[in-house]
């Protein structure tokens, strides 16, 4: 964890405002859709830049779309440029650095960019910044040529003509080689302590000398009165070459003897636990060095973290630009067109042409957060995760507050970011700790990694993804993907950009090719969207996350014929609603308002088709902690949240209500779902067609702790027969409440017993109702079960319970903390009894699969003593 040296006084990130070229109004592209705004294209292309990280380049931090095709690009900032360094009065206190090291740094930065296919085109003295405490040179503004699609999206020349390679000026060809030329000219300037000059000092004059094909490097230097240092002759002979093909590459230059002693920069890797071979385990003692902690914030936060905190504290990039007078609100009348042709073409006066037409970097001061975090204890920056994660005092209360509040509290976020960073570095070993912490909340900055960890993404994901041949033709599926992508979450700038479209297409195709037994259903696009937005700069990780997600939650939905899977899923969902809100469930059932009519988009897309991404982030933060049935609980929570409305509605109104998802409170949905999840027997949501056989849930309970009343052991064969005899959905539809497996009942009883033994009260009381006649009951029954024979009426005509057992049973009718489990001798009787209970709107009713005969086979029945 190398400390970073951001200077807090002068700023550590800056913003470049860019005005991109506007399209004429009402332009329509080939497919009939409006032409994508250049600003949106830029935002799409930014994704690849955001993923770049190297000691000799300035990190890109954000891109923001302003009004009128203004794009604000936020990036790492240092207040000294190479230009200033070589000026007459260089800033003091800089570590001594040699021209050689600077050239090496720049070349290293270029090599990194070129290896990723990025042409800089803006290598100039201003665009090389010097880090104050290390003296390292870093390329800044290197991404504009790439961002603007080779300069096409802006009306100005990207770069500096004086430093441009011959092929750029003559034939407008820009390859990585043009950067090498600019680098050579920068070196000439460096040796000259300033700009290049000749007698006439005109641009043309200088260019003429530089481009002079016959002149040697030495001759060029002398004509430009550059004091050529001998050590650079070879470098220049290889780089200041007219023909691009003969010019050296950055890689070749780095191998020159002159650089043999140069040190590559110290690189702090961006957090990327999924490819880390070994965990970075750091203890506070290794790091806590008094002197380093004078400015703990700047030293212990990465730039990315710092920017995130600044934004959370209310930092607003566009407002900062306004402070510089850079975003001028124009008076609406000035926006009126001058001429409108009958064809619809509109001519407007060009607005202020100077603003945003260069690549000037304006510093932003993070003072906003520095003050607020001044008192944060140093330990926060280096949390000890090996022993126990504990929130500092004062933060514990915070943790209980709603997410929106937590996300605005930067002290809290700093804690969380630091803690999760440490945990993620320990992934996969730290998975349990990550899970625990994620129950509280997930810091937005790290959500993408936390999600991938929760999904247990592992292995060489890059290699895996790269090996899938995504160019393969898929026929009809290709056409389907092509029509779906331009309609998928298009309010999101990234997803609506051409880059976003391409990436989504590749990921979807990769998934289809990678899963020969499954296929593309409309909706998979929406499902992929959250991952792609989070990992916009890392397709492989987006893909790996999607893959594991689909397998866990929606695997068989994507079978060619998924009807049996869907039918089963939706039926179990119905039973879940019945379990928690029988009144609502019966109302919906009576109307014929079946989930097939409204819930398919919910579950097939795990809500991504019905909620905007921002809500999905919160929803999935929790969902990823649950098992494959958890989404059903979310669905049930949505229904229950609007239950009063649904109860008062008729069929049409209900259908209309869900045609556009009503505005539900997501925080509450999550809370309700969690509550239901905790009190629902695991096997109530058992599905034959779920991918995971939910093995943990079907395991027999642990061996007894000696002498317990409810300690049973089941043989493996018994259990597998028990599960295998589970009926098909068609038969289940005759049931009026859900079924649980016998081992689930045993587990619940044992749990209750152990809690009671410890003198506590279990969160729910289990009432087992045996509906056989009393004489059979007396021969053998589950200890403490109630005998309410099916043959007997529950209440007398005047409403009195017919027996003390019935009385007890009825007491549990509306109890939120009761679980009523029915065991019966046969299907008919059990169904009849359950139906009666449901008719009375009994909460939390389940029947045991196999009924009393299963109990008997399992040896759970005892005679009345």
């Amino acid at each position: 964890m190398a400390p970073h040296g951001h200077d807090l006084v002068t700023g550590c990130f800056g913003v470049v405002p860019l005005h991109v070229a506007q399209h004429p109004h009402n332009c329509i592209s080939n497919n009939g859709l409006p032409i994508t705004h250049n600003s949106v294209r830029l935002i799409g292309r930014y994704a690849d830049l955001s993923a770049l990280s190297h000691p000799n380049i300035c990190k890109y931090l954000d891109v923001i779309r302003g009004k009128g095709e203004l794009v604000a690009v936020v990036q790492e900032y240092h207040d000294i440029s190479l230009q200033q360094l070589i000026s007459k009065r260089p800033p003091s206190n800089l570590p001594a650095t040699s021209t050689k090291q600077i050239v090496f740094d720049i070349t290293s930065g270029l090599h990194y960019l070129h290896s990723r296919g990025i042409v800089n085109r803006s290598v100039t003295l201003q665009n090389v910044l010097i880090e104050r405490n290390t003296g390292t040179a870093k390329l800044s503004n290197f991404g504009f040529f790439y961002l603007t699609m080779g300069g096409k999206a802006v009306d100005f020349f990207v770069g500096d003509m004086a430093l441009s390679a011959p092929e750029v000026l003559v034939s407008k060809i820009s390859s990585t080689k043009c950067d090498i030329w600019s680098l050579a000219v920068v070196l000439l300037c460096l040796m000259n302590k300033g700009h290049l000059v000749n007698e006439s000092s005109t641009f043309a004059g200088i260019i003429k000398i530089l481009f002079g094909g016959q002149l040697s490097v030495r001759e060029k230097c002398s004509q430009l009165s550059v004091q050529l240092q001998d050590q650079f002759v070879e470098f220049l002979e290889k780089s200041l070459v007219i023909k691009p093909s003969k010019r050296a590459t950055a890689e070749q230059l780095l191998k020159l003897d002159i650089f043999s002693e140069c040190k590559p920069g110290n690189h702090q890797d961006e957090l990327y636990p999924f490819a880390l071979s070994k965990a970075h385990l750091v203890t506070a003692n290794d790091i806590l060095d008094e002197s380093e902690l004078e400015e703990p914030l700047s030293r212990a936060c990465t730039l990315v973290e710092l920017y995130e905190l600044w934004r959370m504290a209310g930092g607003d990039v566009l407002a900062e630009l306004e402070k510089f007078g850079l975003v001028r609100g124009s008076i609406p009348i000035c926006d009126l067109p001058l001429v409108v042709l009958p064809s619809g073409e509109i001519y407007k006066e060009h607005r202020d042409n100077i603003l945003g037409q260069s690549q000037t970097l304006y510093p932003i001061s993070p003072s906003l957060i520095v003050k607020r975090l001044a008192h944060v204890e140093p330990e926060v920056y280096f949390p000890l995760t090996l022993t126990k994660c504990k929130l500092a005092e004062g933060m514990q209360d915070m943790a209980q507050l709603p997410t929106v509040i937590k996300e605005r509290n930067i002290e809290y976020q700093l804690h969380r970011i630091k803690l999760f960073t440490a945990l993620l570095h320990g992934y996969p070993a730290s998975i349990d700790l990550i899970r625990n912490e994620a129950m509280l909340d997930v810091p937005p900055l790290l959500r993408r990694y936390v999600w991938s960890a929760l999904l247990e993404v592992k292995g060489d994901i890059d290699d895996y993804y790269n090996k899938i041949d995504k160019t393969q033709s898929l026929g009809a599926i290709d056409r389907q993907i092509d029509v779906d992508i331009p309609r998928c979450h298009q309010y999101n700038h990234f997803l609506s950009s051409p880059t976003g479209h391409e990436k989504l297409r590749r990921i979807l195709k990769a998934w289809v090719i990678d899963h020969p037994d499954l296929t593309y259903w409309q909706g998979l696009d929406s499902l992929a969207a959250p991952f792609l937005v989070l990992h916009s700069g890392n397709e492989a990780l987006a893909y790996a996350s999607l893959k594991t997600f689909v397998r866990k939650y929606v695997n068989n939905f994507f079978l060619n014929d998924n009807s049996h899977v869907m039918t089963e899923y939706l039926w179990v969902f119905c039973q879940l609603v019945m379990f928690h809100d029988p009144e609502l469930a019966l109302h919906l059932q009576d109307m014929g308002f079946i989930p097939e009519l409204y819930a398919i988009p919910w579950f097939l897309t795990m809500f991504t088709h019905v909620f905007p991404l921002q809500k999905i982030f919160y929803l999935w933060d929790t969902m990823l902690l649950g098992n494959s049935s958890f989404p059903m609980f979310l669905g049930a929570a949505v229904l229950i949240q609007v239950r009063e409305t649904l109860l008062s509605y008729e069929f049409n109104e209900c259908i209309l209500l869900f045609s556009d998802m009503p505005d539900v409170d997501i925080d509450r949905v999550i809370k309700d779902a969690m509550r239901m999840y905790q009190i629902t027997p695991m096997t109530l949501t058992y599905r034959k067609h779920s991918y995971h056989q939910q093995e943990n849930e079907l395991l027999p309970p642990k061996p007894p702790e000696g002498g317990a009343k409810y300690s049973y052991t089941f043989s493996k064969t018994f259990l597998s027969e028990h599960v295998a005899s589970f009926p098909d959905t068609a038969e289940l539809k005759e049931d009026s409440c859900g079924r649980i497996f016998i081992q689930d009942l045993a587990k619940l009883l044992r749990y209750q017993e152990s809690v009671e033994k410890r003198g506590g009260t279990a969160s729910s009381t289990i009432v087992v109702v045996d509906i056989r006649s009393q004489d059979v009951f007396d021969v053998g029954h589950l200890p403490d079960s109630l005998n309410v024979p099916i043959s007997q009426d529950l209440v007398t005509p005047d409403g009195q319970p017919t027996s003390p057992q019935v009385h007890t049973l009825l007491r549990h009718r509306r109890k939120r903390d009761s679980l009523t489990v029915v065991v019966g001798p046969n299907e008919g009787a059990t169904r009849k009894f359950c139906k009666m209970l449901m008719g009375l709107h009994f909460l939390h009713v389940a029947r045991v699969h196999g009924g009393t005969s299963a109990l008997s086979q399992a040896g759970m029945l005892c005679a009345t003593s």
Partner: protein
Amino acid sequence: MSGRPRQNGPAQAKALQFKLVLLGESAVGKSSLVLRFVKGQFHEYQETTIGAAFLTQTVTVDGVTVKFEIWDTAGQERYHSLAPMYYRGAQAAIIVYDITNRDTFERAKSWVKELDRQARKDIVIALAGNKFDLSNKRMVEVEEGSAYAQEHNLIFMETSAKTGDNVSNVFVEIAKMLPKVEPKPNNNGQTVRIDDNQEAQNGGGPGCCSKN
């Protein structure tokens, strides 16, 4: 679970209710047509329809108010198995294709055939060649569409959800063709019964439209 019929009957206003279903290949503009008809809007980036969507709208023809209960279905072939759930019992259908895409016209024809076999015998069907505004890119001539429609006794119109051309006309023409007597209080107006789904898929017998 079959649902019981809803009370859409005489107690309410005297609007006649008809169930109408939209069918056709995906991205031909089914949802856009409905959105234009019901809300007067058009979204360039109209989201895909998963499963189906439901909307209602009324039109008045010859002094009679007709209320359409519109089921807008998913277009992808894979969602086909859900379709019978929506068209069964429907009194009207709009089969949509995109005039700039030939394949969608072929798909429309197969929908016509399927409805002939599986839907109510008295169902009123309209064929809509959508995206009329893109007629400079057309791949299906008007004559072809209208000839096919005539041959199969369908209402035919080229529409544009984008400009709104002919959109409400389609619905009005359908409304004109629908019986103006109060539908008998049987289950015709009833929406959906999932449980006959299976039979229909397996090419179940004729007359599966009104059960009970």
